[in-house]
């Protein structure tokens, strides 16, 4: 029965007994077991990734009033496998004048930056890779490696479109990192720790009820970090052909594509972990760790669906509007929210939990309302200025 209560530890103990029984030193056995655990997690993720291709195509087709893949296998489920075979047997082209090593390293780094995120994801109370005490920062650090892979891909392809795509994408990624990191500090304040497991454990009340505005800002910044529409600057098809990955073909392109899908799913998961209780669902996680995994996968899928929903219904925003939106609206509002939350957290530390929750909730709503009012009056002034100039020009 131990296996059903704590599968990871039971399996590790069993393997340790087996390996030491073969005469392997304990230290080596532990390293081997660690590698096996990583291998298991990565293989499961890659298999999940294959089905994400199917999920993405099915969902987008429903949004666009189509049926989507439906020929290969039931509901088109085998379609992604056919796609993989196609990608693998495609000719692999390296453009003339490309920087070979950097060119080949970029897709690997892109995929890696997504996969290393899963090291800190708690799938169940007993199932997690490492309980880093700087988990929230670690997510941003992995994002920095993703940024690097994009600029590497864009530069090494020796193509003007891909270079422009990479410039624009990096500008967006670097600027949206700031509200994202700021907003990630808000669950940190509530939980009193940056560790992802501690943040999950602290959510007796989901943090989305304490900080709905923070959850919204995190979602917007996450979509920008993913480089997805409406912030898909890096690969704006109508302007840049395909952006930073234009010269990649076959499985190298597949790495970027699969990395993007898994990244979206992962950020759906982080949205769930930081603001929707992670694997917690009315005590269901105490029943069995497998139920906990099911809960977090369901929540991550839901977050992923919201990200897809926005991607396929909102049009692309022009890059200057996007950067202005980030620097003049999102970043200030995130900073104000962080300061108010920290202040209220100290002020209401001894208050009853109802007062604490309602105070936090109302402060969020108030900040959102005030921010929108300021933005509205500022844009009205801007519009009047533009109209006045037009009137003057019309009278000339």
């Amino acid at each position, binding site marked *: 029965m131990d296996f059903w209560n704590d599968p990871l530890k039971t399996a590790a103990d069993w393997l340790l007994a087996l390996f030491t029984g073969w005469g392997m030193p304990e230290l080596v056995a532990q390293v081997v077991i660690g590698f096996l655990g990583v291998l298991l997690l990565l293989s499961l993720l890659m298999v999940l990734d294959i089905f994400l291709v199917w999920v993405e195509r099915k969902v987008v087709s429903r949004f666009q009033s189509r049926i989507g893949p439906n020929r290969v296998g039931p509901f088109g489920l085998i379609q992604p496998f056919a796609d993989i075979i196609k990608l693998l047997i495609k000719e692999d082209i390296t453009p003339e004048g490309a920087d070979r090593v950097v060119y080949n390293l970029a897709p690997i780094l892109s995929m890696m930056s997504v996969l290393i995120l899963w090291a800190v994801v708690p799938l169940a109370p007993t199932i997690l890779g490492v309980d880093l005490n*700087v988990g929230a*920062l670690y997510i941003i650090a992995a994002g920095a*490696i993703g940024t690097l892979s994009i600029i590497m891909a864009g*530069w090494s392809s020796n193509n003007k479109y891909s270079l422009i795509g990479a*410039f624009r994408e990096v500008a967006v990624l670097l600027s949206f990192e700031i509200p994202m990191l700021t907003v990630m500090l808000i669950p940190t304040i509530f939980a009193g720790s940056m560790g992802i497991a501690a943040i999950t454990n602290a959510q007796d009340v989901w943090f989305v009820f304490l900080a709905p505005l923070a959850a919204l800002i995190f979602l917007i910044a996450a979509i920008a970090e993913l480089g997805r529409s409406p912030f898909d600057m890096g690969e704006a098809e109508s302007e840049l052909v395909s952006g930073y990955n234009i010269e990649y073909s076959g499985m190298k392109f597949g790495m970027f594509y699969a990395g993007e899908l898994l990244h979206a799913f992962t950020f759906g998961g982080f949205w769930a972990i930081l603001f929707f209780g992670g694997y917690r669902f009315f005590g269901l996680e105490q029943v069995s760790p497998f139920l906990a995994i099911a809960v977090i996968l369901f929540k991550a899928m839901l977050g992923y669906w919201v990200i897809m929903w926005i991607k396929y219904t909102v049009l692309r925003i022009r890059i200057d509007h996007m950067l202005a939106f980030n620097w003049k609206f999102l970043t200030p509002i995130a900073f104000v929210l962080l300061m108010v939350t920290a202040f209220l957290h100290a002020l209401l530390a001894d208050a009853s939990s109802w007062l604490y929750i309602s105070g936090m909730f109302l402060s969020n709503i108030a900040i959102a309302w005030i921010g929108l009012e300021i933005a509205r009056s500022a844009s009205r002034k801007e519009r009047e200025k533009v109209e006045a100039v037009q009137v003057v020009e019309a009278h000339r």
Partner: protein
Amino acid sequence: MTIDQIIFLLVALFTLFSALRVVTTGNLVHAALWLIATLFGVAVMFALLNASFLAVVQVVVYIGAIAILFIFAVMLTRKEMRDQGPQMNRNWWFGASLAVLTFAGLYFLLQGWNGISKTAAVFPSGFDAVGELGNALVSPNAYVLPFEVASVLLVAALVGAVYVAFNRK
């Protein structure tokens, strides 16, 4: 030799090699990439020393910021990014002797220091290193003054950058 020492030596070799490549490679963008490898090696050093916060901040700040350096390297140079000129200038012997002197000075200083042969103290279980660091940064008995001075300096740099870039109509 323990496993820790082997890992340390490998990481140190990697860091030194990439640092050497930063200055010897002729291609600007490759130099930026080797710089990233160097700084990543330093981050691994911090992780080996149980300084997880510093390790992660090293990656966020340096590798994240070098992407910008990268962009400037690409934008400010022509398409052909190979540096054609000689790698050394006339002062190479001066720089080399300065480097040797610094190394020798550090070597003699550390000879008299007994901290090298000591093993690091193990954290007691439940020790919150990040929390301790945070408390130390805002505690008047520890580092609140240097911390605030650094913050003021950064804000001044920020205001200066905005002032320089501000477009007066």
